[in-house]
């Protein structure tokens, strides 16, 4: 990709969106270390799967739309499918942890709903 294809304002916008998105994802990754219990930790990676992902997808949409000279919305599908499939993983993780904690009789096991 050469300089002529992407004007300066486009480059700034893409960099701002991508870096902000990456910042949220990095914060989520740091949360995996900083938070203490399993149930708290599961919240952290959601940052990368929601706002982090949305901003990076937006950066990609802007980049390809500006360089190709037409609206390219293909990348929105990444956002759609990621949003629809992430709950499956997180609910499975939560269920597995709940089952383990209840079976072992841990003090911080979730109560019955």
């Amino acid at each position: 990709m050469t300089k002529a294809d992407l004007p300066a304002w486009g480059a700034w916008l893409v960099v701002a969106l991508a870096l902000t998105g990456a910042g949220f994802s990095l914060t989520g990754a740091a949360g995996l270390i900083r938070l203490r219990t399993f149930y708290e930790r599961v919240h952290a990676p959601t940052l990368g799967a929601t706002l982090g992902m949305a901003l990076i997808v937006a950066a990609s949409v802007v980049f390809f739309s500006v360089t190709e000279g037409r609206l390219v919305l293909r990348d929105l599908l990444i956002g759609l499918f990621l949003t629809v499939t992430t709950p499956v993983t997180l609910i499975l993780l939560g269920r597995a942890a709940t089952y383990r904690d209840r079976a072992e009789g841990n003090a911080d096991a979730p109560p019955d709903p």
Partner: protein
Amino acid sequence: MAGAVRRLCPRGPRWGHPLNRLLPYPLLSLGLFATWLLLNPPLTPATGLLAVTVGWLVPFVMRALRPEAVRVRAPGVILGLAGHVLVDVVQSNIDVAKVILGLRRGTRRTGFVSIPLDLRSPYGLAVLSIILTATPGTLWIQYESNTGRLLLHVLDLVDGDAWVRRVKDRYERPLMEVFS
């Protein structure tokens, strides 16, 4: 094609109306059509024709799974709900980032909230699980279909009753209108 599929699985959904026979799942057809066009830009007569073909024929495969018919209503409510969710997702992303980076002042309590749900539609519950999971700070732990109670883990739990009201008023009520 349609006749061959019908001989293979005769007990499809809603076969009475001729339009249903031609288009068994109109929403799925529309989704596939839009997905195909998004994946294959630019729009030319050839890609448009392929998108129509895919959107028309692929839903016949779904008939083998016999999914429960979905009825979506109240487009205005859907838009309002989408707006609420968008605001909540951005806000809770910032809140959770603050918690992780240690910018939140005061003591933080984390815990479980039990919410009695009146929503029974499986599609409505699926959308609710997506909303609650896409909002950092809330985690869907367990749903008991016998009692309709949902167990939620909340990262920053200030007031349990406030969470019950928030889920019921902000998300559950619009979803019950949409999937009634």
